[in-house]
């Protein structure tokens, strides 16, 4: 399984925190966007769109269901094909 480089992980975290309007120390790798941070499906789409733009990758819409916390997002980004 591909592992996401550290600099990319921090860029992902920055994007997620920016969209969910959170401080970086409020989020852990396993805290849940929806249950713990009050996110909803539209925020999830915003995260997906920003990641695609930032990294020049394509994330299938069906991955949204998996993208529940940072750990899961790192995995999805690592596995996403470049455009």
């Amino acid at each position, binding site marked *: 399984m591909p592992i996401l480089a550290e600099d990319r992980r921090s860029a992902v975290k920055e994007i997620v925190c920016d969209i969910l309007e959170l401080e970086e120390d409020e989020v852990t790798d396993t805290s849940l966007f929806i249950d713990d941070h009050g996110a*909803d*499906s*539209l925020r999830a*789409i915003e995260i997906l*769109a920003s990641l695609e733009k930032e990294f020049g990758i394509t994330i299938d*819409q069906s991955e*949204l269901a998996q993208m529940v916390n940072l750990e899961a997002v790192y995995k999805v980004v690592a596995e996403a094909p470049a455009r």
Partner: protein
Amino acid sequence: MSSVRPGGVTGNRRVVLTGFGVISSIGIGAEEFTESLRAGRSGASPISLFDVEGFAHVNGCEVKGFDPEQWISRTPVRELGRASRFAVAAAVMALRDAGLDPADLAGRRGLISVGTTDGESYELDRLVAAELADGPERMDPQIVRRVSAARLSTAIAHELDLTDVEAPTIATACSAGNYAIGYGFDAVSSGEAEYALCGGADAMCRKTFTGFYRLGTIAPEVCQPFDVDRKGILTGEGAGLLVLESLESALARGARIYAEVLGYGLNCDAFHQVAPKGDSVAQCMSLALANAGVKPAEVDLISAHGTGTKANDITEAAAIRSVFGADTPRTISLKSMLGHTMGAASALGAIACGLAITHRFIPPTINHRRTDPECEIDCVPNQAVDADLRVVQNNGLAFGGNNAIVILGRYDRDGDIG
């Protein structure tokens, strides 16, 4: 305008539909539209109105072969945005269809109301493109003057030279056409207006296409409402304008009556930005039926909102079942043919319902293979059927839980309805 509330006591005057103006991807004018509804034509084709490079799926339902100058004579067409051109042309068409001359209306108090989702966002797209390419100083001032959504209604008043009118544009998105018709119904039934020109208009735009695409709701090829393999919407455009007048006025001038407006219902749950809420959709149907004085078992056909998304179709079908139970009438989606014409959708839906009543047929839900078991309705797949329709329900559901439902009934010359 009116103190009459949905579900309350309705005004004294009966209100009928006597003229239709249609601009759609499957026909311009009521006659062409009727033929296409009966034949089950699809308005889908690759989008040509804006750049779709980089998108994997690029179909939409564009209006083609529309010459605004065929309808618009008093207003320089260059002053009007694409949606206003549709709205104004459809209004002129509706009056002609009703056999009314604008001069006949000049001395009478009226209402002009057009519903919309995007207003003139097609024009805004062009301004943003110019700004990004060449800077804000290069934005075309002619286009800037087109962008106010209020012009969808006021431009109609200007073109028809009608001054004793209220002319609001109603911006309740994808149910806005029904909102406008409901407003017209109240105005005419209460006697506050002698006539109403109501409906909806929208032009396709890149902003909306891209937004829906990003939500994952754009279908790759075609729109398949209620099908187990449905994949979403196609964006569409057009306008539907209806002439509402009192039954007395229509009879006095010997007008053709397509249908009677029996009532309507509105509610807004503000539950979620994009997800429909089943309970509130069901409640809106009950409000509309109560306002119309109609029992669920008396409804012969429902024209559903039926977008072709997973979320809408299951929620809407379940809401219909909860209200109608074993008496659930046939339930079709015009969006299978027209795509999602946004603010025009429920206005074109109301016109299609009126035409179905008049010409005694049910338009089909096309592109249909197998009905989703979670949508327990007969969607009249692929082939129109002949039917004697007395009461028809037209659903409009919008983002934010803005629901609006209109009930139409056949008007028979002997005065017997329902």
